[in-house]
Each structure stands twice: as C-alpha cells, then as structure tokens.
C-alpha cells in the first residue's frame, strides 16, 4: 500500500473510532479481535470481549473527543505485515464536566479481510496538567 494511502487509512480510522466511541460505544467491538490488546491508563486488557466490556463500563455515558493531532507510520518495511501505527492527541469532554481531559493514544492497525483493518494494539493515557 502506498504511503499516502496509509495516511488516508489512519485518518479514516481515527474519524471512525472516535465517532463510534462518542455515539455508539458498544459498536467498537467490531474493530477488535481475540488477540487485540488494550492498555488503558496502565491496565492491560486482552481480547475483544474484555476490551468491549472495559469501554462500556467507563464511568461516563456521554463524551466527545476533540482530536488535535494524528500521526501515522507503517509499522514494518515494504513487504511486511502492512500494519500502520497511529498516534493521536486531543481532548475528551465529558458531559457535565467543566474542563476537558487531555489525552494521548496510539493504535497499531493490522490489515484484515477485504481491505479492512483491526486494532491489534491500543494504548490510552490521560495527560494531566
């Protein structure tokens, strides 16, 4: 896949992920699989079911992610697995809270079937002031 196509994939993924997160969090299960790994504020969670449960149980109903930066790079050399690393920073506004929370997040996307990508690795950290 050409370099610019990977950037487009990263950009499309980021839009899709945060749209799902903010509007239909339970649908996020579609982007993980049984080998996916999430580190959420230092807690390691393994596999689509556990990850979905963790995200569903987060102590807020409504939220909105505002993305400040998106960087991406191929995770292997040409001819490798075709993975894409995506590095995001932004802020997370929780409903009813005065101030948004700043966060950084990284994803490692691996090609799946029919041109789709799934999240093999994900790490999330709040950035405290």
């Amino acid at each position, binding site marked *: 896949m050409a370099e610019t196509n990977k950037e487009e994939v990263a950009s499309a993924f980021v839009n899709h992920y945060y749209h799902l997160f903010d509007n239909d969090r339970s649908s996020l299960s579609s982007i993980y699989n049984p080998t996916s790994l999430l580190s959420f504020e230092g807690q390691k969670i393994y596999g689509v079911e556990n990850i979905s449960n963790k995200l569903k149980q987060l102590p807020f109903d409504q939220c909105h992610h505002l993305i400040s930066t998106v960087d991406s790079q191929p995770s292997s050399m040409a001819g490798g697995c075709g993975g894409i*690393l995506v590095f995001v920073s932004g802020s997370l506004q929780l409903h009813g809270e005065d101030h948004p929370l700043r966060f950084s997040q990284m994803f490692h996307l691996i090609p799946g079937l029919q041109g789709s990508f799934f999240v093999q690795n994900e*790490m999330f950290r709040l950035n405290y002031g």
Partner: protein
Amino acid sequence: MDPDAVAKAFVEHYYSTFDANRPGLVSLYQEGSMLTFEGQKIQGSQNIVAKLTSLPFQQCKHNITTVDCQPSGPAGGMLVFVSGNLQLAGEQHALKFSQMFHLISNQGTYYVFNDIFRLNYA
C-alpha cells in the same frame, strides 16, 4: 527478560542518551527507521540524528511519568508508549510530551524502527 523490564530499560537508555549524548542516539536507529517529530517526517538514522542534534536547545532533561508497552505482533517487536516532561535549560516551565516507539529486535538488541513525538500543549 520480562517485556515490561525491557521497555523500561530501553526508555531509560534512550532518554539518558538523549539528555547526555544526543549524537549517541545514532546507534538506536537504522536505515529504515522513521521519526515523526511534531509532524515532520524523517527517515534513516543519519537524518534522524541530524534532526535531533539540531533541535534549538543544548541542554535538556526528560522526566518520564508513564511507560506502557505491548508486543507488536508475531515478529517479536515491541511498542512503547511514553509520557513525561522535558525541561530545557534556562526555561521556567517544563514542556509536556508523549512519544511512541516501535522496537525491533536485531541479534539480541532492540533498535527503534518507528518513533513519533508530540508535545502536549495545555
């Protein structure tokens, strides 16, 4: 060796080299390595170290707040996600940053294949 311990050792080595001997970082990258520094894309160890050694400050100190790591796949790579702050000599306030590394194993040691750095502005 425990992956978390490997990640922690790498992070300590990377930032202590950055802070004390920035040209020494050349041994941590290879020809195919990629750095995205505040949105600027740089490839190859020579170009990457040229960028890092030309940053507009002489002395700096990285203070690391969090380190997370995960295996990147069956090839044995490791993803490392760091947050912390960067104190520049003479500056009153430290700059907050986040950085991610993708480490690839090569004959018993790790080198940085992917490196993405962003300052976290308030």
